[in-house]
């Protein structure tokens, strides 16, 4: 297969094992060691995508994670899809299939490319001023169209089949970045005996040294590659060192917590199926050294985004990494000396370097080398435009005067197929800033350099502004010694730093320093490539009043794309400063947040998906219920039966049947999920009296009382039953959903507010099952199984408890009811629950004991008007609102009591619990529906429906609601108004529809 831009030799690729992949359906060939980007460039393809907003043709700009343009959809197999993958990071593997994005019908002929012609109508923030009229057009026309056009990639449509794992590690030192500085530091620390983790983003360590060749530094008298190899050899034997490749440090939090994402399997042709695709490392290092390197800046001139314009460093990376020439006819723009190195290396590799333009008066030492090599140097010149179809065909160059403006001497057009831009370097300080390190503008470097940081963190090398390799190694050496000292680890006697032959670079000219280039056509001069933000957009932001960087960022979206401004942030800031007439150092860079590069959801989820997403709690009777055909629902983490439908029976019919069985016969209900707490101690009664609204001290042993727990602001936190087991021992029973919250509440008050009270609370629901036996025939049924207890109404009144045996199993029996029928709760050891319920069923077939679920329970309690915490209460409702003043014991203080006297709780428009009877006995009001006087848009809400159901006992629909007190008159008629439902007219009445005196209950 043709690879016209692949050199015959060189590169860290394995030419003996060609790899074939697909790009937009066409075959593309490469080798192990290639990325998708290098294979594309080798083939001579330059157009790889269309930009986000204006659909401009775009090509590969960089060779690393900062790539803003070459975002492709990569498929590694069925269900394994990554949209917006950076072609510069995707390693070539057989079977890989890539597709360009954001163009239709084809990349070359993209219809939406017309947006570029209409660019004048699409400046930054245009959507804040458009799409308002005509009314209604947004929903029908604009939004659907924008949704189709928006975004770059398409989300995957099937579940991610790959495995992802997490790993938690502590270490002494985390070194981020495996370039020369990081390797030097890691070796030093490992030799000192520190436990070191070295994480590098690339497939192999070496960092910037991998992207240099003949024009790069010579170390210890030999080529850098030899020094690198020796250093790595020493590392692999050194102490406790974990060296991770293909591992990105995504986040470094101020607490020192680091998140590392290791790409384990994507690059493997046939990965071991036991391997996860990615591993997320959560690391707690005691100290961190950042040697994260630097990012090259693009230049600012009209049409600076044309495919064929690449970073000079990227050209070197592709040359030395994959033996790929990014162009045959090259022009180099050297605003920084590294441009000359690129020119020299590409020329030596066979490219024709037609010109090197350098706006600086005093170019560095490499300029002489370039001229000696016969390359033409245009000193004092800069690029001011590009020409071509989608691909670059020529560059316009102009001479500039000292202020960076064209001096009128005349421009030149130089034909070329690649323009290499060396715009200077931005230190990669993102992790430093994330961890709370400070940044200060350095005018000489024209960049934000790290200033003060936390004591456990250091940054060294190019990331700290080092301009030479010697400086980088010295910084790393010093920083590591400081960190080791802070850890109490004695550093070994330092190795002498190697002798390095490298040119000392002259100061670079930042791209924004030449207004002659970026003022020429601001609308066509791109700053943020991925989000299509131009110089004109930044100037517009300042004119509109969004001069502050954080405002301008959000208004223009500069720096908000998936590259997070890696190549654009410094230029953005400098141009904003320029437009606002302020010095750059007066503006602060926008907050840098994790992650460094996009992270898959799978990696974050790890194993917590599917069955392991959250714990499932089942009761001791779960298997029994399942065997009886129960349909389950989730209540928090619990699985609870909704109903026990017979074959062919709907859930609704089953619930109605079960409820009728409880009213007429006897029902069996699993109440094991309810909270249960044993509270004991000499001060138990005192403690509970402060927490509960009811009189606890006066509760006789053997009796139970229903009460409320309020927050100190007077609102209902939970309800439940208090049983006195002994003078100093109580059993609390609370709602399922509120159990954990109530336990936290009890512990909090006991430990923080009243630590002198001698009281101990123990959750006792675990290990215990609760079977509720409810109905007029409940006593009949239990008598057949019970022993050692007198179940008669006289001996065992309502709201009391006794001990006895059911089917020979010891039980505590509470006579409590949530159904309004005489009822008992059997508290049993969990291991005996199935045995007991089977005994009851066996002994009473003539009574037809009916298992019932939550649906039936809701109907039964609704008929009685019993509140359900979380339905009738919502965190703002008080006992008075619910008509439960009788539960507020006089003569003692309890949490919430004082607040009930506040003016707020005495307002006449406080909500009031009422019963609602729909005028149409078959109409079911929606829970959450608003109660209004008349169902019309804008009608003020007078309250809401809190519970509703079809009562089988009454043969009609009923509901409870909370209505403002001054409108809650019995007989009043209101309408329930809910979206997408017909309005339901209701009549207000008492919040109890059955046996308000409670005579059935006490039978």
């Amino acid at each position: 297969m043709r690879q016209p831009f692949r050199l015959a030799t060189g590169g860290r690729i394995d030419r003996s094992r060609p790899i074939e992949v697909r790009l937009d359906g066409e075959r593309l060939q490469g080798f192990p060691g290639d990325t998708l980007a290098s294979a594309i460039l080798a083939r001579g393809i330059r157009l790889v995508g269309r930009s986000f907003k204006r659909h401009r043709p775009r090509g590969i700009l960089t060779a690393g994670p900062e790539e803003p343009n070459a975002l492709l959809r990569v498929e590694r197999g069925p269900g394994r899809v990554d949209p917006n993958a950076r072609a510069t990071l995707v390693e070539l593997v057989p079977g890989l299939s890539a597709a360009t994005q954001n163009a239709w019908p084809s990349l070359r002929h993209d219809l939406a490319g017309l947006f570029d012609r209409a660019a004048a109508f699409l400046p930054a923030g245009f959507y804040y001023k458009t799409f308002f009229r005509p009314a209604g057009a947004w929903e029908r026309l604009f939004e659907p169209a924008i949704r189709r056009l928006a975004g770059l990639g398409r989300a995957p449509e099937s579940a991610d089949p790959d495995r992802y794992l997490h790993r938690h590690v502590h270490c002494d030192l985390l070194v981020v970045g495996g370039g020369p500085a990081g390797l030097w530091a890691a070796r030093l620390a490992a030799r000192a005996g520190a436990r070191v983790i070295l994480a590098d983003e690339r497939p192999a360590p070496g960092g910037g040294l991998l992207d240099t060749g003949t024009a790069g530094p010579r170390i210890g008298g030999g080529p850098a590659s030899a020094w690198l190899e020796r250093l790595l050899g020493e590392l692999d034997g050194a102490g406790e060192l974990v060296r991770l490749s293909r591992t990105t440090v995504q986040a470094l939090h101020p607490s020192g917590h680091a998140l590392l994402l290791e790409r384990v399997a994507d690059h493997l042709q046939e990965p071991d199926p036991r391997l996860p695709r990615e591993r997320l490392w959560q690391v707690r290092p005691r100290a961190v050294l950042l040697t994260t390197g630097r990012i090259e800046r693009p230049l600012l001139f009209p049409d600076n985004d044309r495919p064929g314009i690449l970073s000079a460093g990227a050209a070197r990376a592709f040359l030395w990494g994959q033996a790929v020439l990014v162009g045959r006819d090259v022009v180099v723009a050297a605003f920084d000396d590294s441009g000359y190195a690129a020119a020299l290396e590409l020329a030596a590799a066979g490219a024709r370097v037609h010109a090197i333009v350098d706006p600086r008066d005093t170019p560095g030492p490499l300029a002489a080398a370039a001229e000696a090599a016969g390359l033409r140097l245009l000193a004092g010149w800069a690029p001011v435009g590009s020409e071509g179809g989608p691909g670059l065909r020529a560059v316009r160059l102009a001479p500039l005067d000292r202020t960076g403006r064209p001096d009128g001497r005349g421009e030149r057009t130089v034909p070329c197929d690649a323009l290499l831009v060396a715009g200077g370097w931005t230190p990669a300080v993102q992790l430093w800033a994330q961890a709370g390190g400070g940044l200060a503008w350095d005018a000489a470097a024209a960049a934000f350099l790290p200033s003060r940081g936390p004591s456990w963190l250091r940054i060294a090398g190019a990331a700290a502004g080092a301009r030479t390799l010697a400086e980088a190694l010295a910084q790393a050496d010093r920083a590591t010694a400081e960190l080791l000292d802070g850890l109490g680890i004695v550093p070994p006697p330092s190795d002498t730093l190697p002798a390095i032959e490298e040119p000392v670079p002259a100061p670079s000219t930042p791209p924004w320093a030449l207004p002659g280039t970026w003022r020429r056509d601001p609308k066509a001069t791109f700053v943020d490539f991925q989000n299509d933000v131009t110089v004109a957009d930044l100037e517009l932001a300042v004119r509109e009043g969004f001069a502050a960087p954080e405002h301008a960022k959000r208004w223009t979206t500069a720096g908000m794309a998936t590259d997070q401004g890696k190549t654009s942030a410094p230029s953005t800031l400098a141009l904003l400063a320029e437009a606002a007439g302020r010095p750059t150092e007066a503006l602060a860079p926008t907050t840098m947040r994790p992650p460094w590069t996009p992270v898959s959801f799978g990696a974050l989820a790890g194993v917590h998906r599917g069955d392991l997403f959250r714990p499932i709690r089942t009761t001791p009777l779960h298997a029994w219920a399942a065997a009886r055909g129960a349909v389950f629902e989730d209540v928090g983490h619990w699985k609870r039966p909704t109903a026990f439908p017979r074959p062919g029976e709907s859930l609704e019919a089953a619930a109605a049947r079960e409820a009728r069985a409880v009213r007429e016969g006897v029902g069996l209900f699993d109440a094991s999920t309810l909270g249960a707490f044993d509270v004991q101690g000499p001060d138990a009664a005192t403690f509970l009296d402060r927490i509960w609204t009811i009189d606890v001290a006066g509760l006789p042993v053997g009796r139970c009382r229903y009460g409320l727990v309020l927050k100190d602001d007077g609102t209902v936190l939970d309800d439940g039953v208090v049983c006195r087991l002994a003078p100093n021992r109580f059993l609390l029973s609370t709602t399922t959903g509120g159990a954990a919250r109530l336990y936290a509440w009890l512990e909090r008050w006991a430990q923080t507010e009243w630590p002198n009270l001698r009281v101990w609370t123990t959750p006792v629901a675990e290990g215990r099952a609760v079977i509720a036996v409810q109905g007029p025939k409940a006593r009949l049924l239990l008598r057949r199984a019970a022993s050692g207890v007198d179940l008669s109404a006289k001996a065992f009144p309502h709201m009391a408890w006794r001990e006895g045996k059911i089917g020979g199993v010891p039980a505590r029996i509470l006579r409590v009811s949530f159904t309004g029928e005489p009822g008992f709760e059997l508290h049993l050891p969990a291991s005996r629950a199935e045995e007991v319920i089977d005994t009851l069923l066996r002994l009473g077939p003539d009574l037809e004991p009916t298992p019932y679920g939550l649906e039936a329970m809701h109907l039964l309690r609704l008929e009685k008007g019993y509140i359900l915490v979380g339905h009738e209460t919502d965190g703002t409702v008080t006992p008075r609102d619910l008509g439960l003043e009788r539960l507020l014991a006089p003569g003692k203080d309890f949490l919430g009591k004082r607040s009930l006297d506040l003016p707020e709780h005495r307002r006449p428009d406080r909500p009031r619990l009422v019963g609602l009877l729909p005028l149409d006995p078959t109409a079911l009001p929606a829970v959450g529906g608003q109660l209004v006087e008349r169902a019309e848009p804008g009608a003020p809400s007078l309250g809401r429906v809190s519970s509703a159901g079809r009562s089988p006992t009454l043969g009609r629909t009923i509901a409870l609601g909370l209505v403002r007190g001054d409108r809650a008159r019995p007989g009043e008629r209101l309408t329930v108004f809910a979206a997408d439902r017909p309005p339901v007219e209701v009549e207000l009445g008492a919040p109890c529809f059955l046996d308000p005196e409670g005579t059935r209950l006490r039978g």
Partner: protein
Amino acid sequence: MLVIPCPFCGPREEVEFACGGEAGPPRPADPGALDDAAWTAWLWGRVNRKGPQVETWWHQAGCGRWFLVARDSRDDRVLAAWPIGAPTPTGLGLEEPGP
């Protein structure tokens, strides 16, 4: 994620704990004796200091004990942790408890 130094268990990851918020003055012994302004001031008022402040924390997934933590609200640095009832450590820059 913070590391909380539980006085009973040692340093543990923040996920094991629940924060009880700013540690304030004790609950008035006789709320009935307070006027509305004084009561709501105790109930809702918080100093919310920009700097070192004392909070209650609960080792929910560990020993189950509540304890006090001094944390700098500016940069989330946890300065110290001590049991309830133990004397407040000095030298942390903590102000006297509010009214």
